């Protein structure tokens, strides 16, 4: 038997000698590249990384190639029949191929392993034994799987892709494949560093995989005197190819359709300083016990909001609401998938109950509608409704918002198109003031069509996912503004805006006195080039303030294209307007370089106005 095996190995050697030589050169090249990377790296800690990095690429690639040349070709060209005609036992032929592959790959991989180990002269015998065991086990598992796949003939690609898809899905479901047998053997975080313990578990798992693959790889050529392997080796028919593609497509769909991860439970606070509602899923945490009364006010407002979401907007399960009130920082909202709840982190300085309710409502709408509430045509309604409906607003508070709208109208003409384009409006007027304008629009909706109609619009647009994908877009009824308004009320967007303009004129008369008291300010933005870089420049002018006015120079880098500027990329620079000065120039120096684009805006506070007023906003090219 041994003589037969040796003869068969001779045949394999004759057939593969050049391929083996090229493979050896390829391995040496890979090894040297990894070696060079190790030598020049400032962070690599051990030479043994060369082995894992090289063999991680080489062994699977070489196993697949050798399996193709040694098994697939032989069976496809039916040259195995010549060997089978010789006086050999049937199992000797596949066994010879299997052992030849194991021998050559083991020699190549083991050779590299020993070479690198020999150069790393701090390698004790135990470490060497562990490294070699891992290497040879990895070779065995790769080769046996490649051998088994090769025996599947025309089904090998399908089987290979199915294996890959299975691994991918397991990984997406949270299984750490890196810790499973074959993958763990050459793991880059353990292979080069594990000096004491043999990876028994990984070896056992790899052994099981190898045994299963060998059972398939050696069993198939023996089954029914090899006829199964012969049949599998034939080229696929047109019908089979169609079937393969169908299976592959189904697998592809599976990858995308299966939920990637399990839904998390809503976040909950731990520790002291937490106020929780007894009826609703609401918690407020306050850093400072001295501010507990304020926290209680916030809690009451949120309880009310959560309750109204159910009673007025018919939301069966409102999002869990969590609020942290802190001494520092700004506003931060963490919103997960539907069902995971909302977490708001707010500075105590600004966290009025009304603001908290507005933010919580806005982000709840966004979560309940799976993001559709922030779709641009719906955004003004979403923001305006959240500010109008969620907190308790009295007439004086609402008039402040009308005043905002009237002030913006001084600089920006409110036409039908601009009022339907939230992103442009928010850029020109500032997001906060744009929300004020949205609130006035919502109030006009209520005045014209009644509260029930307004709530119906909110139920249709804000608390259910309307359009989630192309299927919904094609099939479901689209419920976006301004089409939704026309469908619900019978009034066109143009007619509604005309009515709104009239209301705005009426508000201008009603609020003439406070409006006249607010000064008219202006700003012009530009770019200034100096020897050491470019500056953004703002020229501000208007009535000299009695006391210093803290304006803000907002700026952000822009990509070459024009989309809405994400608010988290915008930075603020202080722009103090000294008392008694009618005009001055402010700069953001050297932040933007030649060839870049930048967004710039000037916001100033006005006496008697709770918000910053935007004086100018531009997108600038730095020459």
């Amino acid at each position, binding site marked *: 038997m041994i003589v037969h095996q040796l003869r068969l190995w001779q045949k394999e050697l004759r057939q593969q000698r050049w391929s083996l030589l090229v493979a050896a050169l390829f391995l040496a090249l890979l090894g040297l590249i990894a070696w060079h990377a190790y030598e020049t790296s400032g962070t690599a800690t051990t030479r043994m990384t060369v082995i894992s990095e090289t063999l991680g690429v080489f062994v699977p690639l070489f196993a697949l190639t050798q399996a193709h040349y040694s098994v697939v070709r032989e069976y496809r060209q039916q040259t195995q029949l010549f060997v089978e005609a010789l006086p050999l036992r049937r199992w000797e032929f596949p066994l010879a191929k299997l052992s030849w592959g194991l021998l050559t790959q083991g020699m190549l991989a083991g050779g590299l392993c020993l070479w690198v180990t020999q150069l790393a*002269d701090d390698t004790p015998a135990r470490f060497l034994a562990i490294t070699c065991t891992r290497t040879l086990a990895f070779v065995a598992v790769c080769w046996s799987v490649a051998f088994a796949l090769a025996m599947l003939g025309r089904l090998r690609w399908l089987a290979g892709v199915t294996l890959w898809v299975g691994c991918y899905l397991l990984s997406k479901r949270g299984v750490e494949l890196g810790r499973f047998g074959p993958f763990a053997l050459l793991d880059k975080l353990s292979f080069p560093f594990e000096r004491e313990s043999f990876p028994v578990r990984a070896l056992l798992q790899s052994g099981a995989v190898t045994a299963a693959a060998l059972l398939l790889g050696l069993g198939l050529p023996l089954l029914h005197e090899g006829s199964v392997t012969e049949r599998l080796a034939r080229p696929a028919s047109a019908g089979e190819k169609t079937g393969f593609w169908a299976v592959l497509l189904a697998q592809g769909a599976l990858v995308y359709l299966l939920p990637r991860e399990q839904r998390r439970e809503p976040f909950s606070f731990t520790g002291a300083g937490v106020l929780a509602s007894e009826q609703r899923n609401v918690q407020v945490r306050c850093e400072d016990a001295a501010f507990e009364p304020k926290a209680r006010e916030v809690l009451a407002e949120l309880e009310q909001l959560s309750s109204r979401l159910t009673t007025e907007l018919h939301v069966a399960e409102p999002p869990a609401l969590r609020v942290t009130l802190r001494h520092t920082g700004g506003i931060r909202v963490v919103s997960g998938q539907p069902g995971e709840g909302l977490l708001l982190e707010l500075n105590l300085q600004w966290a009025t109950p009304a603001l908290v309710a507005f933010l919580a409502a806005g982000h709840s709408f966004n979560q309940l509608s799976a993001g559709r509430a922030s779709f641009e045509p719906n955004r003004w309604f979403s923001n305006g409704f959240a500010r109008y409906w969620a907190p308790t607003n009295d007439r004086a508070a609402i008039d402040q918002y009308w005043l905002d709208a009237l002030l913006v109208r001084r600089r920006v003409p409110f036409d039908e198109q601009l009022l339907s384009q939230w992103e442009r409006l928010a850029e020109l007027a500032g997001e906060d003031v744009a929300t004020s304008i949205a609130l006035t629009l919502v109030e006009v909706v209520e005045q014209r069509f009644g509260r029930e109609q307004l709530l119906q619009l909110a139920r249709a647009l804000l608390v259910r996912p309307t*359009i989630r994908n192309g299927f919904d877009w094609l099939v479901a009824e689209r419920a976006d503004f301004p089409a939704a308004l026309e469908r619900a009320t019978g009034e066109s967007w143009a007619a509604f805006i005309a009515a709104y303009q009239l209301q705005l004129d009426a508000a201008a008369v009603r609020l003439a006195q406070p409006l006249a008291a607010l000064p008219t300010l202006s700003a012009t933005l530009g770019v200034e080039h100096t020897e*050491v870089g470019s500056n953004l420049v703002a020229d501000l002018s208007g009535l000299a303030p009695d006391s210093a006015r803290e304006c803000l120079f907002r700026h952000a880098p822009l990509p070459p294209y024009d989309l809405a500027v994400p608010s988290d990329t915008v930075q603020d620079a202080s722009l103090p307007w000294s008392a008694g000065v009618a005009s001055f120039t402010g700069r953001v120096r050297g932040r933007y370089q030649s060839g870049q684009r930048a967004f710039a805006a000037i916001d100033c506070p006005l006496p008697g106005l709770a918000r910053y007023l935007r004086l100018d906003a531009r997108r600038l090219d730095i020459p």
Partner: protein
Amino acid sequence: MLRVLMRQELRRLLPWIVVLVAIDLSYLPLELFFRPPDTAAWVSSSRLFTGSLRDYGGLLTLAFALLFCQAGFPRDEEEGTLPFLFGLPVPRAQIFLARVLTPGLILSGEALLWELLRWTVHLPATGSFIGHTFRTDWLLTTLVTSLALAWISVGYGQLLSVFRRFGLLLVFTFYLALSQLEGQAPWLGKLDPLRVLRVEFVGQQALLPGKALLGHALGALLASCLAGWFWVGPTERVSELFARWRLRPPLRWLLRPVVLWSCGALLAGWAGVSALKSRYGVVSADGATRALFDGRVLSKRTRYHELRYREALAPRVELLAKVTDELHERLATRLGMEAAGDVVSVDFTRESETHAGTANPNTIRMDPSAAPSADALERVFAHESTHVLSLRASALRLSREGEALGFFSEGLAEALALELRPNAAVLEARRLEAALAQQRLALTFDRMIRYGDFRQRYGTLLVYSAGLTWTQALIASCGQESPQKVLHALGSPDAPLKQPPLGLWQHLLQRAGCDLSRVNGAWESQLAASTKELEAELARVPFLQGGNARWDGDAVQLLAQADGEPVEGTVFFVNVRTQSTGPEAGGTPVSGRRRADGALEFRVPTRNVVDGGLEFQLCLRFERQGAPVSFGNEWAKTRVAP
């Protein structure tokens, strides 16, 4: 006749064309399936602006070009149909032309189809800026670069088909080498044909990569000519000539063996030189530093460590060896774990340009030249030992989940190192760095938990001070044992590793009996307090701004401004880089001088200019009570003016 030949080629390549079109078409249903079609902007799927799409599209084109070329002459030769083909009454040049034109046209068609699909997908979009995201000049630029890549790939593919399947191996090897070596040899990147897809912008104007296009077009033309000469040579096929040579005894043993063995000899030479270099420690440091790496390698064993060092370092390392076990045990106690375990190998034999020390499970590498005093050396050792032990405590997940936890890993190591070897000056220096970052860079937790982006934006230095202050806030608000609880929660089998970074942190801190909001609140309060306390010092640190670059002889002159009077001994430097990912993300420092008018002038080597742009980070360093304080602006990019 050419048309007939091309039609025949088309028939032959039909299955691959179907696959290619299916791949392109699958993009459309997926796009429609996963998000509302009215939210897709034209630029969001553009190869001009999205690096991953550019690489994916480029590799797809390259792969199919190679497949098409492999399905040409090599397959004919393999199947023995080449003589029939040459038997046709057609000039051989036409046969070759058909085999170049057909794949080229198919891939050009694919590029056009892709753009058409993208254009169709963005039609339902309703956003107010959508109309401005589509520009005809950008579409033309995309088409020019995509079409150029298609034809260039076919040209190179024809030459690679001469090597049959080894051509594919050559391509694979090239890209593997490129990924490993481009950092040290940026010129290698110029050989990559996918470079023709990289487009730089000045404002909104797209700049075609003219040099890359021209160079690769000429290269592809030359490659095609060589392939044509080989496959359909003027008098008789060159491959036949080779085939006949193979049969002649003197050449038979010369051809393949000599080529292969000479390759082998070259590789062996490279291996030998590398081995000698590594064994006998050829280092690039200055004289004083080099002296530390002289002499034979010695080793010293302690209870938990095995230290390897050069003779010249013996006094320092032997002093350190006396305390290594104590440090290890105290750290293990602090992290709530057993001190026993695998012996940690500590290597002092190599210098590092970028790190004072690095650690992996069971292995530490330290560059003693970066820690000149015994106290500093012990602190670096404690820092690296913390990495080793925290990796063990977290079942290596601290490294595997490095994107979300990288800053904590460094912060914890720094905090424990300073706890075990306290140094008020270093601690204050780190506080000052963090306060500077808070004041000038708007440092946030959300940025820290995206470590790759953090390094791209701020480089690597800031992570130590930012991580340290956050870890201190964690300990202050959640208790002394909170780091070990976080590590154990991370190492537990049911840790939710597939969560986004924020979700992972929320979960880990909940398991540690704490809240993320509480820690972040404490951190922000601490930073605010530091900023207030150190206000006067912060005001004395000059503001770095500007960055005008222009060619100046054999270098690039970069001008910037330092506003404010620096403390004595302040060093100004600029980090420059050609890659924003991987180990090179930290960049290479270039020192500058401060002119009398306060302007900073740097002379940057021209090799750092990529596609006419220079990526840089303005930095300064000064000493505060004997401890170095570093600060760097965000990384920026500027066009180099003529």
